[in-house]
């Protein structure tokens, strides 16, 4: 293989090496970092109250949006994007448990979302005349079932496949998504490719207050999402800090060792699948009732990969990362589209081009910041085994809480040590 092409790449590789070594380790300015850490400490000191504060802050978004405080996304359009980002956060949190905490690569995550949506549609008074229903319950009554069906599907797909080696899981879950699409396309009860229209929207009446959620993505849809997101966040955080979370970490790091230490591997993996599926069941219910029409094309394979993108780019297993990832995948492309006025940017279509760009970002993130942009604290030094180039490998030193060494020292650790 000593062709000129090979030699050219060797040459190019050698030129690029210094760039690669230097590029990622741009240190965060000291004052900014300190301020950030202070803020973090304050935030943690709030204890359980911080969930309320977060909910309050989230509730502020729609009114501010109405006043035009957000630069691009305003009005009804902004509300739609907000809603999309909201259910996407739920999906990202759920897949974050599977991929980020338990370290299982699930490429068919949206299949659970699909099941949640279809369950909702088939348990409420939906569809054209003659549409099959299991029961015709009010929309709210379908919610627990959307959740349960997604979780049961998690067990059903998890039990046989989670005994497989890690990399096979990816393809099997991808296949599961494909099978689900094929089933929904071919079954009579789901109305096949024609989909199910007229899924009833929920309504709330407390005393004299009555509100019907409609097609219009008024702020109330967002208020429906806030408790779901907060609950999911609490669940993920509590699990991460619990014995189960430590089990997951152990499995992720070394399955054989974990199993030798008595970690119930398959049980814990299935649990990760089920917990992950739960948030997408809820998201499916909210999605189905919001858009009121679902068909198999609403849940393409691509969606599974996009959720994975937001988990990985945002930060594996971190809450802030999930939110950031959802914003990057859902809101930012919409904002870009709005800015570009429907035109292409450098030839890239804002909506499909984003996937190409995310693909490239996935590679870059995996190389330079394997824990994602906002890596979970426990994770920052994981995803990599410190090897001979140990100093080079742990590249997030600038972001860890206790600074080990100034960022400059870190990249020279391979060569000269001072």
């Amino acid at each position, binding site marked *: 293989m000593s062709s000129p092409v090979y030699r050219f790449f060797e040459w190019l590789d050698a030129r690029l090496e210094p760039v690669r070594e230097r590029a990622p380790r741009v240190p965060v300015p000291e004052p900014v970092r300190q301020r950030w850490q202070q803020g973090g400490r304050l935030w943690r000191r709030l204890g359980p109250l911080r969930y309320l504060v977060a909910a309050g802050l989230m509730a502020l978004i729609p009114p501010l949006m109405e006043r035009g405080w957000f630069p691009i996304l305003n009005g009804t359009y902004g509300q739609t994007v907000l809603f999309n980002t909201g259910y996407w956060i739920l999906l990202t949190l759920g897949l974050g448990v599977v991929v980020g905490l338990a370290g299982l690569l699930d490429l068919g995550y949206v299949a659970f979302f699909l099941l949640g949506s279809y369950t909702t549609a088939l348990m409420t008074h939906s569809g054209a005349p003659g549409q099959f229903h299991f029961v015709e319950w009010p929309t709210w009554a379908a919610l627990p079932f959307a959740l349960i069906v997604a979780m049961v599907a998690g067990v059903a797909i998890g039990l046989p496949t989670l005994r497989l080696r890690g990399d096979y899981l990816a393809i099997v879950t991808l*296949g599961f998504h494909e099978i689900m699409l094929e089933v929904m396309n*071919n079954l009579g009860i789901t109305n096949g490719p024609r989909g199910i229209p007229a899924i009833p929207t929920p309504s709330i009446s407390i005393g004299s207050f009555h509100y019907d959620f409609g097609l219009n993505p008024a702020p109330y849809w967002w208020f429906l999402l806030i408790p779901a997101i907060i609950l999911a966040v609490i669940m993920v955080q509590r699990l991460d800090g619990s014995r189960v979370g430590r089990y997951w970490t152990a499995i992720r790091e070394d399955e054989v060792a974990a199993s030798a230490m008595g970690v119930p591997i398959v049980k814990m993996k299935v649990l990760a699948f089920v917990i992950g599926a739960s948030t997408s069941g809820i998201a499916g219910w909210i999605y189905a009732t919001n858009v009121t029409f679902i068909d198999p094309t609403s849940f393409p394979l691509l969606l599974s990969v996009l959720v994975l993108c937001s988990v990985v780019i945002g930060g594996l297993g971190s809450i802030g990362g999930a939110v950031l990832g959802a914003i990057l995948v859902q809101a930012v492309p919409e904002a870009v589209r709005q800015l570009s006025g429907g035109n292409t940017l450098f030839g890239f279509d804002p909506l499909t081009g984003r996937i190409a760009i995310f693909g490239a970002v996935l*590679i870059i993130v995996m190389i330079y910041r394997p824990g994602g942009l906002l890596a979970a604290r426990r994770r920052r030094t994981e995803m990599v085994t410190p090897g001979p180039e140990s100093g080079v490998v742990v590249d997030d030193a600038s972001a860890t809480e206790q600074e080990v060494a100034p960022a400059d020292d870190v990249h020279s650790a391979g060569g000269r040590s001072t």
Partner: protein
Amino acid sequence: MHCNAALIAPTFVTGLILGFIYALIALGYTMVYGVLKLINFAHDAVFATGGILVFYAFGQWFGIVQPLSGVSLVVLMAASLVIGALASAGSAFLLERVAYRPLRRRQGARLSYLITAIGASFFADYLYQQNFLLGPGKREFPNYFNVSKAFTVFGSVVQNVDVLIVVLAIACLIALDQFITRTRSGRAIRALSEDQVAAQLMGINNDRVITTTFVVGGLFAGIAGVLYAIKFGFVVWNMGFVPGIKAFTAAVLGGIGNIRGALLGGILLGLIENMSAVCVGAEWKDTVAFSVLVLVLILRPTGILGEGIKG
């Protein structure tokens, strides 16, 4: 389950031909897995690159629009196979360099490799989908090779391109088998697949062997890509996706890392898929293919012929 008896024999033949294409693509998965113990999910993009570049070369730049015959056809056919193979090999090479090698240097976790591969695959696919490249629709492949009926076996029409597919696939497999068992590079690949550290200690340049593996897998994927485009008459931005998954399934079915297993798995999968179209219904064929994969993985995780690159 009700099988239409009249359709079984013809479907058998079409399934067999499809199987050979799967086998050609599966070689790439199997080679990379044998050496790196890593599923190269971006191999579907490598496959597509071959067909797409030939589409550009002959359809767009040279503007060949009518069927050719005689010497010019042979030359053009050879040229397109070579171009396609080189394009795919080049993209596999690039992939290894840009995505995998930096990860290896940093000793990335297994999950990182998989995510990187997904990223690379989607990057390539959606790059092709942009309007400055293929655009979202199907693009007609230059029809210099007049696809027509060659002969009939068991009542199934065999096209001339099918004959080409089978002959080339068998030739490629024999060539690869010889390459792995007879040459120095092949021995290095086998050594690496058995024990990376020991191979390195014996003076094998691991990086170079890994690159070779990617390139060889890419060559076959490129040939498969061109044949696929000729057979179906179009290229499309995501043309690699479904064949890629199927080929991967085939590789696992036969025993991933095993070259003869790739052929066996490819043919079996092609047959199962087409038979299920007759017996269960065409709309369920992906479900059947994936169910077979899951069953094989559960019952015999190392595939039919077992894992590992062997001589």
